[in-house]
């Protein structure tokens, strides 16, 4: 009998600390599937960032370094420059990548650093308890924008993928969503491309994954998926902004 669905080898068999309904689990699984399918587990080094995914190394079975807040692309750069034949990826949330780490991600892309970046965008700070992120939507209520994000006082949501796609050194930049199976499958193909590019030495690749945070959004897991679809997709359109096939 041939199994058609099983735990990826690169995914540890442990209970995660993630909240019920959180899409980090889906993103981790996709990552592990891609690592398995490309046969790169033994030569991959992950960089965990500060945020809910700080313990990613407890779940994905590869060598890991834990980076200071926002600095994952710099840490990954250091690793890759010492070990250019290894596969190095960062896994960062929107507070980490789009706020405190904005300089690091821009310059890693500008250098065309041959690394893969997985960017989890759930429009909020998860681990610290639901504060406003640079990616929070206008009108979105968070613990630090209790009346809803007001553009006059708190500015506008940052579209990081569109920004990074303008940088010459970026090879592949795409945004996917994890709110339903069809989009999850597309996301997996994007992640695979981002890793294949690195294997082929093509340079900087970033995949943004629209994700949910039921706990801090104050919604049930099901309603969180619905909220993502209805509210985030119009602000954060899906697609490959740079590095489409044939480009």
């Amino acid at each position: 009998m041939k199994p058609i669905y099983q735990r990826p080898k690169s995914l540890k068999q442990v209970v995660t600390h993630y909240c019920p309904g959180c899409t980090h689990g889906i993103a981790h699984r996709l990552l592990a599937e891609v690592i398995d399918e490309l046969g790169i587990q033994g030569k991959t080094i992950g960089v965990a960032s500060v945020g809910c995914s700080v313990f990613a190394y407890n779940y994905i079975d590869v060598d890991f370094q834990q980076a200071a807040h926002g600095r994952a692309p710099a840490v990954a750069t250091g690793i890759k420059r010492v070990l250019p034949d290894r596969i190095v990826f960062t896994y960062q949330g929107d507070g980490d990548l789009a706020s405190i780490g904005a300089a690091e991600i821009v310059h890693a892309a500008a250098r065309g650093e041959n690394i893969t970046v997985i960017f989890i965008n759930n429009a909020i700070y998860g681990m610290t308890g639901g504060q406003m992120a640079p990616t929070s939507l206008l009108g979105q209520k968070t613990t630090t924008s209790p009346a809803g994000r007001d553009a006059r006082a708190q500015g506008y949501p940052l579209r990081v993928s569109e920004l990074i796609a303008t940088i010459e050194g970026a090879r592949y930049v795409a945004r996917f969503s994890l709110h339903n199976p069809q989009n999850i499958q597309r996301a997996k193909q994007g992640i695979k491309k981002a890793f294949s590019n690195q294997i082929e030495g093509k340079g900087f690749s970033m995949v943004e994954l629209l994700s949910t945070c039921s706990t801090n959004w104050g919604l049930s897991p099901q309603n969180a998926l619905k909220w993502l679809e209805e509210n985030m997709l119009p602000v954060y359109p899906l697609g490959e902004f740079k590095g489409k096939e044939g480009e």
Partner: protein
Amino acid sequence: MSEPVLMKGNEAIAEAAIRAGCRFFFGYPITPQNEIPEYMSKRLPEVGGVFLQAESEVSSINMVYGAAGAGGRVLISSSSPGISLMQEGISYLAGSELPCVIVNMSRGGPGLGGIQPSQADYFQATKGGGHGDYRLIVYGPATIQEACNLMMKAFDVADKYRNPVMVLGDGMIGQMMEPVVFPDTSEVRLPEKPWATTGNEGRKSNLISSIILDPEELDAHNWRLQEKYNRIRENEVMYEVAHGDDSEWFLVAYGTVARICRKVMEQARKNGVKVGLIRPITLWPFPDKAFKDVVHKAKGFLCVEMSTGQMVEDVRLAVNGKAPVYFYGRTGGAVPNPKSVEKRLYEMISGKTPVVSDYWEKRGGGAAE
């Protein structure tokens, strides 16, 4: 041994690092240390290494973290304001126990300050600098030859203890030229680093991290670090004592200022005054022993610094009230001249200058003259 070559301090330090097997450099421009990255940008590619100018000091120290964690022999250099920006990363390096060498060609502060020599980063270098309970091993070279020798030693010591090491120079050490002889390093062999994140092929996954949320575990981690620091205290202290046998009065200084104090000491001895010099070479661990050995017969210690008085606190701790401690300092890029130090020395001997404990109230110790 090679022939002596005349080199600028910053360039000699960079060459020493390469000869010590350093193959990775990350940095960001800042005066007065720019010759180090400039030299590295030319030399490292010649030896198959990597030079990378980062977008900021914050980024560069985190590149060092990644590179050190991947097993590389890594150097980073900067000057005071840049070193301040690196403190978070240095704390992470210490917490994750990663080896690297950090050069601080310090300049006058606080804030943007100036670009002339200073020793005002002593506290930052020796007392932790960043957050948390940690220590750097800190060398304070007084000549370019010593800076080269210590650079080479620094990489080995960093690897031995898996700890960041700082070479604390100043604008003077970086900018002046002196003849230097590079030791033979053809035998340099880098140690195995089985803990490095190089890919888990054929072994369990490695992890470089400093997050420990369980209080009991973090407590244990901190005490284990302290055990390591105690081993460093036992094994790595370096200092020089000149004329310790017959002296009653002691000048205390490190780095550039120690050169000036040596001149003052020599002149005073010609005049028949029994003056010695204590020169800490490791600023951390501080050479308490140098003071313990002479304090029973010492009449006074005059600590001279290019700061308003930082190392003098460690001198007072080492002397522990058994003899008076005096201070003289210049700041902001002003270098104490031998005449001023000499004047302070004779004031100490004749009882005309306040001891440090009174100094802070009377503000009498260090004003410019």
